[in-house]
């Protein structure tokens, strides 16, 4: 069944008539995603290569049966677009837009969380379930179908690792880019929880970065709640100590945030950590081989 997007996805692209929205919306459709509508206020009644455009998401839901939204709306209008989708009854919102003001997401996050909505992003590459649906900007051609779940804070690094897996003949159930903003709709844990429950996923690769303590928290979750093996890659082993956000920043997370510290924390929870994309792909191949 894969997670988040699949054959049941009925996609509305918010901002379909913009250049990015059009380019990726049509690419997503070409991949096989069921793109049922676009929304651009003032352009209701038009169409983009046969995809009907509505003025509001409410119409895209009532007229075209949309259940998932892809947000390509410019940063200063993006959170408004997410609220609109949520209140129109959309259950899954994937926001690609970068540079969204952090305070807007801070207020929006508990709201849509309270409504039981799944949100991915903003500032993320989207979600791809190979062979089923691609929602976002992930270049689908480098991935193949398979049973490895992939979740990542970083866009291009996700492609790199997916590519390395593909070179080794390994495919993915779903690839999720959660985005790197201060407040994102879904955390590593949210996605890991779904992979754990997904029949088509046998193993998960978590791709992290230096900074914060999201990876450490996810490791605790893996240890306590997951039966499937999780492997990880952390970028930034050679990075110099980063700028801290004032003194308060360091105290808050309670983590040094370095790649080495994360590696150690993850390994303490039974998660193997590779030091390069190539190495983690090889480790996955070994584990997948052992399970096959």
């Amino acid at each position, binding site marked *: 069944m894969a997670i988040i997007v699949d054959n049941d996805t009925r996609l509305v692209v918010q901002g379909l008539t913009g250049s990015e929205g059009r380019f990726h919306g049509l690419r997503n459709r070409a991949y096989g995603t069921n793109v049922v509508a676009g929304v651009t206020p003032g352009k209701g009644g038009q169409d983009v290569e046969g995809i009907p455009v509505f003025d509001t998401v409410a119409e895209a839901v009532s007229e075209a049966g949309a259940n998932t939204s892809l947000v390509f709306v410019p940063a200063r209008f993006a959170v408004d677009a997410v609220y609109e989708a949520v209140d129109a009854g959309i259950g899954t919102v994937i926001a690609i837009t970068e540079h969204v003001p952090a305070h807007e997401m*801070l207020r929006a996050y*508990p709201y849509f969380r309270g409504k039981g909505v799944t949100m991915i992003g903003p500032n993320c590459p989207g979600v791809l379930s190979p062979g089923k649906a691609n929602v976002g900007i992930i270049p689908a051609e480098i991935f193949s179908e398979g049973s490895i779940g992939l979740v990542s804070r970083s866009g291009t690094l996700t492609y790199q690792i997916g590519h390395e897996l593909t070179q080794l003949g390994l495919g993915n159930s779903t690839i999720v880019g959660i985005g790197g903003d201060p*407040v994102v709709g879904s955390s590593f844990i949210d996605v890991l929880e779904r992979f754990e429950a997904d029949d088509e996923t046998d193993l998960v690769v978590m791709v992290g970065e230096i900074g914060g303590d999201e990876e450490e928290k996810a490791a605790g979750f893996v240890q306590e709640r997951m039966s499937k093996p999780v492997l990880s890659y952390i970028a930034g082993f050679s990075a110099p100590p980063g700028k801290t956000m*004032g003194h*308060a920043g360091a105290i808050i*997370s309670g983590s040094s945030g370095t790649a080495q510290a994360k590696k150690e924390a993850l390994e303490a929870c039974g998660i193997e950590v590779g030091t390069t*994309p190539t190495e983690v792909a090889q480790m996955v191949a070994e584990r997948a081989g052992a399970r096959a």
Partner: protein
Amino acid sequence: MDLYEYQGKELFRRFGIPVSEGRLAETPEEALAAADELGGPVVVKAQVLTGGRGKAGGVKLAETPEDAEAKASDILGLDIKGHVVRRLWIEKASDIAKEYYLSIAFDRGAKQPLFMFTTQGGVEIEQVAEENPDALVRLHVDPLEGFQPWVARRLIYGAGVDDPNEQKQIASIVEKLYRAFVESDAMLTEINPLIVTPEGEVKALDSKFTVDDNALFRHPDIAEMRDTEAADPLETFAREKLDGDVGICGNGAGLSMSTVDVVAHVGGRPANFCDLGGGGDAEGVVDALEVITRDPQVKSIFFNIFGGITRCDEVARGILAALDRLDMSAYPIVVRLDGTNAEAGRRILAEAGKPNIYPEATMLEGARKAVELAKK
């Protein structure tokens, strides 16, 4: 965007948080005039976007305007952790009876703002957190609830502030700091120390204020505060300086950092790295190459691009255009292109036939080649 102390205090003042009167000075003469205008003893404070300026000799008391001039001469030009002092904040000196600490910051993990307050201010707050954690009151604010007066009470009673006069002033400052945090789209606002004078007046003696870059469009007044001299656009573009000889350029922070790791992994020494971001046009590539080659240690350059929203053909054209504009003949440039339009990008580079461009098929091979070329 980090604000200088004097800029943060200007925002504090606008939100009604008490601060001392002061003047900006960029020369000893201006410092003298400022001290004269303010009257009485002043404190001459280096304005730098880093901590530890006190220990570095960047903060000095001056009894007279002439003394302020002398102290300003001492402090201007100081190098504090790589930041050269070009501005001073001349402030009326305050008598200090007590030093507290108050901050509100973005807690990414909890996805909520976090207040921290302690009566043990004036020192590094990490130290309090470590040595005396019970003295540091932490309290999240639920964004759906917003600020409510009880939040200030929990902080004040939790930290053991007993004087009703102080309680009242601090409660007001807590509420105003929250407003400043939200209405300025701040990621952090910190007052350390928040002092109590012998007369019982509470005020902010320092300010740390960081504003979300993504929200600056809503705050043209704050955006104007950016110090364009200190913030060379090329400098901000170059994310990190290291100490080796391979210059690295990736697209996306994650892949760029990972490229640094791989270069190190194959035995190389990364010199620096920059992130092309989602772009990859000629302008971006020129900027990246300028930054990378500013470092005299750089011997080779590695472009590691995995196209997504970035298209590899555009990057290839960007590299060629950059070579037309900059003299890069001294640098071997290893280019690895994959993802969106990678074939086209590789073909463009191949057809251009530049002698110092070395295409490689994988990240690992690219890293090896770049390291090898740096050693020549």
